[in-house]
């Protein structure tokens, strides 16, 4: 009996299978193929980092949504920044990884409020009562945990491309279509691709406030947490890596496709992208979270605590939407009809 060994796909984390036809390792999920020699040793996915044992940090747990946040002893957290319910202190931090780097908050609470008010401006479809009735229920500065991934993507891509030429020959319009088989191979490096390691804030939200400028990051120091909350990672490195790799693969494919701009059409026919993993780091990035209450509903907004990029979703006044659409429809129809009529009369 031989020992059963599993190899993970470096692209997506799926379990690889040996494909007898090509004599290669093949991923059934992303169709990537790999040289079996690469897998003599199982890839080490562990994170190098020291364990966190700090008596100055305490952990709060939300009874309602189960969210876990950290704060220093002097920052009393009273409500959960995610759902607004009360939190209880459950103990000291221990047994989890300590971040390597941190980007400190650059913008304060006042700035977050200003950006929120600015965000409301010029929103035609915002219900008229929103500005007066909506109240900022909760505004919290949170250090959100991220896994940062480096990687070098090697790609071999094939495209089916065409080029067209038109000319006139006597009484004929001539069109020549040339079909090409285009091949591109090469590599491209990525650094610090961030993946939100907290499941409490939606990935959609954390990806929307990107990018953070890593050049401002500092070596981690508990002192930065003073006055702010911090979240604990609850998404595994492996899970996060899939997201990072898929983004790297998409960008790689589009960068290679951009080298075929001389063709009139170019469609990828097959591709193999292999991502050579570099270092992975556990970091904390600053985010302001705003919960706004309007007519018994909570609307969540987020601001990049470093760059000030403000994102969120506002409620839409359906009545306004319908009346504006109807108004535009009528105005354009009447105006165009009138113009046509005038042209008709003048001619």
């Amino acid at each position: 009996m031989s020992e059963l060994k599993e190899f993970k796909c470096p692209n997506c984390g799926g379990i690889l299978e040996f494909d007898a036809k090509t004599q290669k390792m093949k991923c059934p999920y992303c169709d990537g193929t790999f040289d079996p020699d690469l897998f003599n040793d199982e890839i080490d996915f562990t994170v190098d980092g020291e364990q966190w044992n700090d008596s100055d940090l305490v952990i709060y747990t939300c009874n309602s949504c189960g969210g876990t946040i950290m704060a220093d002893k002097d920052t009393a957290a009273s409500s959960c920044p995610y759902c607004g319910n009360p939190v209880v202190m459950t103990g000291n931090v221990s047994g989890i990884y300590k971040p390597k780097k941190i980007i400190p908050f650059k913008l304060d609470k006042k700035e977050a409020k200003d950006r929120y008010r600015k965000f409301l401006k010029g929103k035609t479809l915002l219900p008229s009562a929103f500005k007066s009735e909506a109240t900022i229920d909760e505004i919290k500065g949170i250090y959100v945990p991220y896994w940062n991934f480096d990687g070098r993507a090697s790609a071999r891509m094939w495209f089916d491309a065409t080029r067209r030429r038109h000319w006139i020959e006597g009484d004929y319009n001539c069109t020549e279509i040339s079909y090409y088989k285009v091949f591109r191979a090469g590599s491209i490096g990525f650094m610090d691709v961030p993946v939100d390691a907290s499941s409490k804030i939606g990935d959609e939200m954390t990806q929307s406030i990107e990018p953070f400028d890593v050049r401002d990051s500092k070596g981690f120091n508990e002192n930065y947490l003073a006055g702010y909350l911090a979240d604990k990672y609850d998404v595994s490195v492996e899970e996060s890596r899939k997201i990072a790799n898929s983004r790297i693969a998409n960008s790689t494919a589009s960068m290679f496709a951009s080298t075929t701009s001389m063709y009139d059409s170019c469609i990828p026919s097959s591709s193999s992208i292999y991502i050579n993993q570099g270092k992975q780091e556990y970091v904390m990035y600053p985010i302001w979270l705003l919960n706004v209450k309007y007519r018994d509903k909570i609307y969540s907004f987020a601001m990049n605590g470093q760059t000030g990029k403000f994102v969120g979703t506002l409620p839409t006044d359906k009545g306004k939407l319908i009346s504006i659409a109807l108004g535009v429809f009528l105005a354009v129809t009447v105006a165009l009809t009138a113009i046509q009529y005038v042209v008709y009369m003048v001619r």
Partner: protein
Amino acid sequence: MKKILCILFAMLLLGIGQQVNAEDGHIIMKDGGTDYSSYETYQELNEDLERIENEYDIAIYFIYDDSIENSENGVSSYAKDFLNRHQGAKNTVVMVVAKNYYTVKTDGPQGNLVSNEARKLFELYNNASSRYDGIEAFYQYVVKIINEESYVSGAPRVSGKPRVYDGAGLLGSDEVSSLTRKLKDLSDRHDMDILVLTSDSLNGMDTDNYADDFYDYNGYKDDGVLLFISMSTSEMYISTKGRGTDYITDYGIDYIFGQISDDLSSDRFYDAFVKYADLTDGLIREAESGNVVDVDSKPKKSFTAANVGISAIAGLISSLITALVLKGQMRNVHYERYAGNYVVSNSFHITGMSDMLVNRHVSRTPRSRNNTSSGHNPTHYSGGGSHTHTSSSGSSHGGHGAHF
């Protein structure tokens, strides 16, 4: 050698051709003994004269020749000579003009009638603004003199100048009276007679003569437009006269036909007649404002629901775009599919590339020509305008017909 022979032969042919034309034509022009009446210049008059000879059995000739002996005797004997050489028609009329003398000689039963009017005929020719118009006035008056005496038209004679003469009984009495009101209104407004005529039988006549005669012998104005529907032959015919001919060109007539033929073939006669009245009104008004609708100055398309429809579609699209843009402002949260922000600068290396031509395909399509799809029953609008002919009463009419 062969070449020279060819050229000589061609010249001979040309010479013979001219000779034949000059002798065959009804109009002969000679200046200093040389024939300068190219057949083309007077082609339309010649054709009209040929038609008159065929239809009314009247052969009319006009001769100008300044080499004829310039005396009364000279022109007179020349004309007699000519008449002797041109026998065959029931009535033959020739006007001969030399430098200072002219004569009109006739042959046939109505000859005296024409001879009596010789002075008036010459004045008609002499007082016209051009020689072309003069010749036309001359022979039209000849036809009038002879036909008034002998001609019995198959077209109905009516009194009271009706606007609508529904001989075929296609309209109800209500329709006749409302159409009459409409046409009377138009006729008064334009100081023309705008008529509708229908018939079950042509009484052995041609459509054009029937329509022209109805107009000519029933005391209508010198300017007018008549739509004639001949049920026995399923023909529509428009006859124009005077300003009517100037305003409603051959192209304009076909334009009207194109608009009414569907109604006519599906027996919606009243609708067709109302359309005819409106279109005629429109064409006359355009013409009066200085823009005669013709081959190169087409009538404008009517303003219809289609124009509003196009506007509404554009309105719908703009409203949709506005809604999407405004809705998009309310939400700026979205997943990020790419990692372009994190590319290490200058790390993009292409290590291998090949661009292999695998196939090449050339297709040829004929270039579209300026094919304007022709409308209903196109006639040849060489140079536009109206082609005219002389009716039995000697007056000039424009117009033509088509089947429906």
